[in-house]
């Protein structure tokens, strides 16, 4: 397992970068507990 295993994770994704859902999928697969995930638009 990676460095995220067993960790609680807060995710802020970027509409024009990596969206929250994609980071969430990666974090979960690395064993993290996602406590908040959102995608924001900065433009």
């Amino acid at each position, binding site marked *: 397992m990676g460095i995220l295993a067993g960790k609680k994770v807060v995710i802020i994704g970027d*509409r024009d970068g*990596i969206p929250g859902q*994609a980071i969430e999928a990666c974090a979960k697969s690395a064993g993290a507990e996602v406590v908040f995930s959102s995608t924001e638009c900065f*433009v």
Partner: protein
Amino acid sequence: MKSVIKGAGYILVHTPDMVLRNGTTQTTERIVNPDSEYLKELPSHLRSFEQALSYWPNQVYIGNKTPDELSAVEQPWHDKVCDVNARNGKFGQIMPQEEFLLLMQSCDVFDLVKLDKDFVAAHKAALAANPLMDETIMARINDGVDGAEIARLVSEEHSEGLYDHDKLVGCVNRAHDIDVNLSAHVMHENLVSKASSVLALLSAVKNAGIDKNEVEYVIDCAEEACGDMNQRGGGNFAKSAAEIAGLMSATGSDCRGFCAAPAHAMIEAAALVASGAYQTVVVTAGGCTAKLGMNGKDHVKKGLPILEDMIGGFAVVVTRNDGVNPEINLDLLGRHCVGTGSAPQAVISSLVTAPLDRAGLKITDIDKYSPEMQNPDITKPAGAGDVPLANYKMIAALAVKRGEIEKADLMKFPVEHGLTGWAPTQGHIPSGVPYIGFAREDLLAGKLNRVMIVGKGSLFLGRMTNLFDGVSFVIQKNSGEETAAGGVSEEQVKSLIAKAMKEFAATLLAQTD
């Protein structure tokens, strides 16, 4: 029948006082941290109208400079003075705040906008001198009221103040005592959107060289909502703006989809014309007060001017194929579907490569891509990066993956097939459409064959879905006049007549012999 792009209009309005009073970054800060250093510092970072005129990206937006010329200017641009500082350009104009407040009053049909009579007297002549303003629009401007009455309305009646150089010069009244959908704040926001859409419509109709009465349908694709407590987003901005712009033969409707709406609206306009439902459709959008100064905290922190001080607007005239103007190819539409997913690769594949694959085209067969055209001078200091460049890198990466370009040429792709962003961060305004004016010119001149416009929208901001959205379409060089299905083209008619005349001449000659 194909549809073509007959002309486009692009306008900006310099609204420094609305940055202070109406931008949500500032209104939020005033609530949560009213004594903040940011609010104290902010006024000294506002630009003058002259500074806004000589800002490179603004001159590109109205067509006095090209995207290529802008890309040759070293970034940052906020500390450079453009050698052109004209108020009017071939696509439209940059309007000062004073004239715009009068235009807002002209666009108000419910007697909600009140202007100080001295302010009206001081600036009415300037608006009347604007070649786009006709007698009908000017006749709607009243003489104004006493300044004391405006101060009373703001302090006692919940009216939204209109300021110029930090002085109260008018207000927008609420349109209902209880209904928050008709509050002074909402009415102000909507009247700004409507007035800037009117200015864009007038510019586009003039640039297309058509009569106002030729316009049969208008589609508004801004991001505001108008309605009351029983139908909060009832609409209709399109017809409201068409009325003031004098498009007497038009009806219309609103198309919404966050920043993707302009691309959706363009496809709808093209389809309406191609189907024969309407002959001339105009897609329009005014700007957004809420986004003024959106990244202001970062700009002030870094000692930059407030660059988000411009309300944007655009309009595009779509008509039946005239055999000359660039066509919208409805066979090459990209769309992000419900099942597409949100990974960047999936998004770009659905918008770019999926439609190209259906037509057997390569990524490099599109001469120029216009995705999100946000000005990097605004976004980079705020940590949002260069948005157009990020899009180009993703498209280029897909091209490498598909073996259509060499990996070593990855960074050449943005230069050859991309553009440097110049549009203000007004949400829907930078979304693909700022390039249509330039694209039309270059396709007409034969410099380009195909361009792709990509619109993307953050649907999740409405909290109805977690989905993202986007659509794309291709504009291409005109392939000639056409006739109804099953008919014959002008070329074929000429050929048939020539053949018949030759045969007739041959018969005559044979008889003479």
